[in-house]
Structures are given as structure tokens and as C-alpha cells.
């Protein structure tokens, strides 16, 4: 079946350090979305990437979609305690079926 793999599963960083999470698929994705889930909350949409090689930025967050549209990354520069949560990628292969990665849980140590 179609799967989206995400690494690492957990990441602890000191406040101010950078953080990156990676998603990989064995088959080409039509698009990929990123979500953030705060502790005790529900996933909230962050961004969508559609084009090969696309790069989008939201303040300290940088999202990339690979040239082959099989991988994606989320990079946070100079983490803050407000960045704490679990970050999920969700890949779409065809139609509107979303395949979520396993998530990366980010802990920021003040």
C-alpha cells in the first residue's frame, strides 16, 4: 500500500536551535500538506506544496518539496517554546485520499 514515512519520531532541541523533520514516499505524490498538533489538540493545517522543487516560507518555518515529488521537509529556524507539538506531513497520491506520516514530536527546552 501507499505509505508516507516520517523521521525522526522525536526531537528534543534547546530553545534557539534549528529543527528539521523529513517525509519520504516510495511513489510520486501529487501534493503534500503539513499539519501541526499541539499537545492535547487536533491537527491544524500549516501549508500545502504542489510543485516539484517548491519552497515556501512562513516566518521561521521553511517547507520544501523534492524535485521528484517523493520527499518533503519542514525546517524551523531558531525554535521557540511555542513551536512545541507534533508535526505531520500528509501526502496525496491521487484523488483526495490523505496518507499521514507518523509525525515528529518536537520538544523545545527553554
Amino acid at each position: 500500500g501507499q505509505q508516507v514515512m516520517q523521521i525522526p519520531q522525536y526531537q528534543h532541541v534547546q530553545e534557539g536551535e534549528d529543527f528539521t523533520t523529513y517525509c519520504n514516499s516510495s511513489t510520486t505524490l501529487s501534493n503534500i500538506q503539513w499539519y501541526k498538533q499541539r499537545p492535547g489538540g487536533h491537527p491544524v493545517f500549516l501549508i500545502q506544496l504542489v510543485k516539484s522543487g517548491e519552497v515556501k516560507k512562513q516566518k521561521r518555518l521553511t517547507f520544501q518539496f523534492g524535485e521528484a515529488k517523493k520527499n518533503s521537509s519542514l525546517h524551523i529556524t531558531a525554535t521557540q517554546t511555542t513551536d512545541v507539538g507534533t508535526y505531520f506531513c500528509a501526502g496525496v497520491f491521487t484523488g483526495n485520499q490523505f496518507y499521514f506520516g507518523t509525525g515528529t514530536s518536537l520538544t523545545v527546552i527553554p
Partner: protein
Amino acid sequence: GAGVSQSPSNKVTEKGKDVELRCDPISGHTALYWYRQSLGQGLEFLIYFQGNSAPDKSGLPSDRFSAERTGGSVSTLTIQRTQQEDSAVYLCASSLALVWSPLHFGNGTRLTVT
């Protein structure tokens, strides 16, 4: 406007009992999804409804699980003869189902089977 509404927010049930979980999507959203999230785990796809099309049930873990969507709006997820391994947060999401629309999640129902 109102977001995705799920009820109940918490449900404790005894093993072997049936439970019904409800999801009221955002008005106008034609796509509706159910996911299951166990403690500290990712989102496990259960079922997907799109308009009047036959639902994609490929994620339902067993025949104890079923879901329906009435009138293209409210959805009910039913778990029969609950087992302890069914304990999880059940999340509902809806979207416009336009190409690549984002998912809007509800707050989930935390199910505990004792």
C-alpha cells in the same frame, strides 16, 4: 464560522458495548474523513466520504467498525462489541474536496474501553 464539531468529547464504555461517535462537518464541506489516533501515535485512516460516492472503507480495522453519513452532512462512526484496543482518540475532518483542499479537524472523541 463554526468548525468541525464532534461529540461526545469523551466516552468511557465497558468492553463489549457498542458506541456511536458523531461528527458534524463544516457547512458546505463535501468530503469527510475519520481517523484514529492512539496515544503518542500518528493518524490512522479509517474511512472517507465524498459527496454521494461510495465511501472508501479501506481503513476500517474490522467488521465491528462502520460509519454512515446522512444527507451528505453529519456522520456517525459506530464501533460494535468494543475491545480495549479500540481505546484511542477518534478524529473527524472535513474539506471542500476541491483539488488539494486542506483538512479541518474536530477536537476528537477520546474513547476509553474498560
